[in-house]
């Protein structure tokens, strides 16, 4: 009696172990494929110019601009960076009829476009460099 049970169970054990391995691999696969690999063609986006590992805080390499994008140290912004030279609400980029505009939100250290401090809303062109604190972004718009 026991022998039959043992014979049956050995197959069940192997099946369970492999299902277990399979389910873990599947979860890991979902984890990896969940990462952002969106295509950047025909989209406007900001590209980080600094080397990512030279900045002592968390930041992404690319930020896609969708209608509006805010940047600052506070958690409500679309881009949150823990750079001490960045204000709580630093700047924002707004889209209007396929054109993109940059606006400083009263930051203490200012926002620079191609090296000049901005005071008013300015239009962004492809290849412009936006600087805030230690961070430099390249604006890309290839529509």
């Amino acid at each position, binding site marked *: 009696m*026991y*022998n039959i*049970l*043992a*014979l049956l*169970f*050995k*197959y*069940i*054990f*192997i099946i*369970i*172990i*492999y*299902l*277990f*391995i*399979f*389910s*873990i*691999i*599947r*979860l*890991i696969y979902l984890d990896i494929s969940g990462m952002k690999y969106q295509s950047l063609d025909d989209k406007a986006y900001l590209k980080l110019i600094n080397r990512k*590992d030279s900045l*002592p*805080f*968390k930041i992404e390499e690319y930020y896609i601009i969708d209608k509006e994008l805010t940047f600052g*140290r506070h958690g409500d912004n679309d881009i949150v960076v*823990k750079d*001490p030279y960045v204000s709580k609400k630093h700047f924002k980029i707004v889209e209007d009829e396929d054109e993109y505009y940059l606006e400083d939100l009263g930051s203490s250290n200012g926002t620079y476009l191609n090296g000049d401090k901005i005071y008013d809303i300015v239009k962004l062109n492809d290849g412009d460099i936006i600087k805030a604190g230690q961070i430099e972004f390249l604006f890309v718009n290839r529509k």
Partner: protein
Amino acid sequence: MKRLLSQSPRNLLFLFQVLGITLLLINKGRATDRLTLGIVAGLILVIYLSNYILTKISKGDNYIFLITTMLASIGIIMIYRINEGLGIKQLVWISMGIILFFFTYFIVKKIRIWEKLSYIYLIGAYFLFLITFIFGDKRHGAINWVNIGNFSFQPSEIIKVLLIFILSSYYSNKERWKEFNKYSSYYLMGIVYSFIALLFLQRDLGTAMLFYIIFAAIQFIYEDDRKLIFINIALIVVFGILGYLLFDHVKIRFQAWINPWRYIERQGYQITQSLFAIAEGGFFGKGLGLGHPDFIPVVYTDFIFSAICEEMGIFTGIGIIMLFMIFVYRGFKIAIAQRNEFYRILALGISILFGAQSFIILGGVIKMIPLTGLTLPFISYGGSSILSSFTALGILQVCSEEIKSKEELDEAGD
């Protein structure tokens, strides 16, 4: 039933444990006492809950603990089948291991001065070697056990975790150390070689090999002075040949590996019995309780893998190897994602530790490399081994989370 089988690994693990225990209880026949049943039920519950709670309290990796508890369950079922008394002890060790895992997790997470304690790790390691030589007890040809009262443990299990801490604290601050002394990495190499020499004197060849692999791998990744890596490789070749020529116990291991059949009565006995057991099992095994794993000497520690292959089949054996591979893969991924240099090297070291340790002993029992006594992490019987493995796992769990620097913590405070 269908919901239980639906792809959640936590439920599959639960099902596996329940079925395994049921089968074992039927196998042992007579009524098992209530205490054992209580411990078994308790542990199954603890493992299930731990896996659940961990996803809530830790933002890091959820898979490493799941994989290790699966390995531990396979181990317990096998050990309990070979020897009931040891099986119950192993249940207690695993429960303590899980407690230690959570304890380590919180301690390492809360205290933030680990990278500055290089000298303390160093002194601790030498101190442990010293007590091994004073209180050391000879078992299975190696002097690596310390008995204090009724309690005995293997100091080398603690030293290997300390070694990873030493290497991490050195390489994460290597600029400062190099400024302090130009030849500091030579000194580090000297220290690691002194560890290896001491282990060699204790005849603990497996652990010596493990230490060398961890050191060589981390040095290969982080050492700027590339010349040193070649020196390291050249030295180990020289010492390996010298060791073979000068020490009989190295020679015996090597000969037993080249041709165990010639020495089947003595040196080759273990390895041939292990090969017989694996061959006997075939693809699906003999069935739990129907084989003869007790023919192999020290089956519940070093040769647990052969016993598993005999009774649960080569497929389970391959499954175990795959579980270790996924585990090491997760470990490397944790190391790559970690931004803090110290914790990154720590994660790397621990992944290499588990990968290398399982490779050395699995390779040994299937006669792929010379056999050296080491435990299979999480599966083999043994208090020291289980506790140190779960401690290392706790550290790896911390490494899998985002470690905030001090400035960031202050920022979050206001």
